[in-house]
């Protein structure tokens, strides 16, 4: 790492920050301070704009850096991740996007609470939404820390600490000043940059192999030292049955978790109608799908051009595969082309972390203000004061995320993201699907569904090898490991659905026929939607 890289990357990154801060001030200049505007950007975005913003929210640093790194190190097993991330969007498109847009105002809890008694449902859904968001946030913060370590060229604690604090401070500014409108524009800018960067690198990789994908695969397999085993599943998840079940668990969590992620669902409220929500989901599937196709080329390209040993030497988890690939494609470490390309990729990765973090913070501050605060205070807060609470919540969540990000800085990022997906799939999705599709679903069922997924997911993680009992766990010294899998999804997702069913059939309260009719009519026609 030379000084040129750092200067250029920092310049490009500062330009991104300057542009987004300008957007934020421009947007907050003529705002009215209504909840509609703060949470949903006034619902004035077009499907294409929102599609780009959703894609921007979804293509996190874990996708760009983590997944390409996994492909570069483990070949085909990294590709399995990518497939799960994409197929999950069919669940969102078919079952969730339109119906949620029609039924809710700002958060997932709106949809479920419409049919139930409001307070317990809001508290439960708010709690699980904030939990998912904080897990996801911490993953991004940890990623920011390691990226800065690479950029500054030192693994010094001070640099990583300041990186996490800086990212946290910026996200609080974006969210509390600009609300949803500024956050959406930041996502759009970032999505365009990320797609352009990925496309440029993909073209360069394919040019290197004269457009021959087959030759690229052969070169990657040969360079990896595993031969043809690099191109089939099993390198990472092919060991004992625990590893295989772990992967099936992760696969389930990935495909079902997306539809329960609060920051993805709240994006569908930024468009005016359900039809626009559907069209933005279609846009985002197109963008995300093509992005992931490119990450496959980039991952195998990094294996073939940089080589897994060099990738591993730079970062054991493979997170730096893409920047290294860019350096090589541009002409090597000491060339101008390499410097420019590396700086460009590093700045994009940074921008990605910043934008995703802002999106999640906004969604979780909405949950705090709109669900938790409004229910726990037991009074009907006026919209004006609710926005003020949401701004304060953004600051509070920022502080919590910074603190946890500093604590967890040595934890595996991909694991944290997988965990966030597992919690979203076990706690949010059952309650959401039941209340949209099950006529006799009751309040008790909704509350049980949320806690019945949330609590097992968290408990199983505490009892898993991630926390104790193995050399790589959080507390290697002690051993209270009773659950063998790293990802709890395989057990906790069915438990969430089961608890929802059990709570419903055991509850004495009869389901409210009229409010179910209202939910059903509204979800499919959009009557009465804001």
């Amino acid at each position, binding site marked *: 790492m030379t000084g040129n890289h750092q200067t250029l990357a920092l310049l490009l990154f500062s330009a991104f920050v300057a542009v987004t801060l300008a957007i934020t001030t421009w947007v907050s200049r003529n705002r009215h301070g209504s909840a509609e505007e703060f949470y949903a950007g006034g619902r004035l975005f077009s499907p294409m704009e929102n599609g780009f913003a959703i894609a921007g929210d979804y293509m996190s640093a874990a996708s760009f850096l983590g997944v390409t790194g996994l492909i570069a190190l483990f070949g*085909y097993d990294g*590709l*399995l991740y*990518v*497939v*799960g991330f*994409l*197929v999950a*969007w*069919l*669940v969102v*498109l*078919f*079952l969730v996007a*339109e119906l949620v847009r029609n039924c809710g105002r700002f958060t997932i809890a709106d949809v479920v609470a419409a049919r139930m008694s409001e307070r317990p449902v809001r508290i439960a859904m708010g709690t699980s939404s904030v939990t998912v968001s904080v897990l996801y946030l911490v993953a991004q913060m940890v990623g920011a820390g390691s990226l800065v370590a690479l950029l500054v060229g030192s693994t010094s604690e001070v640099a990583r600490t300041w990186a996490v604090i800086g990212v946290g401070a910026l996200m609080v500014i974006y969210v509390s000043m600009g609300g949803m409108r500024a956050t959406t524009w930041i996502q759009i800018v970032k999505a365009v940059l990320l797609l352009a960067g990925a496309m440029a690198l993909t073209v360069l990789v394919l040019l290197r192999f004269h457009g021959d994908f*087959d030759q690229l*695969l*052969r070169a990657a*397999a040969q360079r990896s030292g595993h031969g*043809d*085993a690099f*191109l*089939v*599943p*099993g390198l990472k*998840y*092919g060991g004992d049955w625990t590893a*295989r079940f772990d*992967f*099936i668990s992760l*696969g*389930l969590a990935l*495909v079902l978790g997306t539809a329960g992620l609060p920051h993805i669902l709240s994006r569908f409220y930024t468009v005016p109608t*359900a*039809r626009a929500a*559907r*069209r933005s989901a*279609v846009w985002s*599937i*197109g963008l995300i*799908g093509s992005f*992931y*196709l490119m990450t496959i080329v980039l991952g195998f390209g990094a294996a073939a051009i940089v080589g897994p040993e060099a990738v591993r030497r730079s970062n054991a988890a493979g997170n730096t595969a893409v920047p290294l690939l860019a350096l090589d494609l541009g002409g090597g470490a000491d060339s101008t082309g390499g410097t420019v390309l590396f700086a460009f990729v590093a700045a994009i990765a940074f921008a990605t972390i910043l934008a995703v973090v802002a999106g999640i913070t906004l969604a979780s501050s909405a949950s705090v203000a709109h669900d938790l605060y409004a229910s726990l205070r037991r009074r009907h807060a006026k919209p004006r004061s609710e926005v003020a609470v949401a701004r304060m919540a953004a600051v509070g969540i920022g502080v919590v995320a910074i603190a946890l990000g500093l604590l967890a800085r040595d934890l595996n990022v991909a694991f944290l993201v997988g965990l966030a997906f597992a919690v979203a799939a076990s706690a949010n999705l059952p309650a959401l699907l039941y209340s949209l599709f099950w006529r006799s679903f009751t309040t008790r069922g909704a509350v049980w569904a949320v806690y019945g997924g949330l609590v097992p997911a968290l408990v199983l993680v505490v009892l898993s090898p991630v926390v104790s009992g193995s050399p790589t766990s959080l507390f290697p010294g002690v051993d209270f490991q009773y659950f063998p899998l790293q990802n709890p999804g395989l057990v906790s997702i069915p438990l969430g659905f089961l608890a929802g069913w059990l709570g419903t059939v055991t509850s004495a309260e009869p389901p409210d*026929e*009229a*409010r179910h*009719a*209202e939910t*059903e*009519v*509204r979800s*499919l*026609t*959009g*009557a*009465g939607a804001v």
Partner: protein
Amino acid sequence: MDGTGAPAPVVPPARREHEGRSGGAADVYLEVQRSAAFQEVRSRYRRFVVPGVAVFFTWYVGYVVTATTAPALMARPVAGAVNVAMLAGLGQFLTTFLFTWAYARHARLRRDRAALDLRWDTQELTRSVRGGER
């Protein structure tokens, strides 16, 4: 308004004689829910979505389970370095795009017009009910 140019299939209107009937907005939603028009929209939605979800979910879970339990099958070469595993992975991408296209087309041609009509009717009904209360 429809944006497709194609004529949406006609469904019977939801509006019935609502002059002089009592009851709040809740009754309106119950009435609309029981109307033939709404039942038709709902069954069109479900007839597409339920089999769709069943197919893609089975195909995805089958893919993940096969990849983790039967690597020998996945390793079978097809053409050059491309093997069954690679084709299955790209096949998942392809089917996701196909399902997305099919769903958007189905919703646009078979549901949107009828849902929009129902929306206006329902809102008119609730408005007249609310107006009567005042």
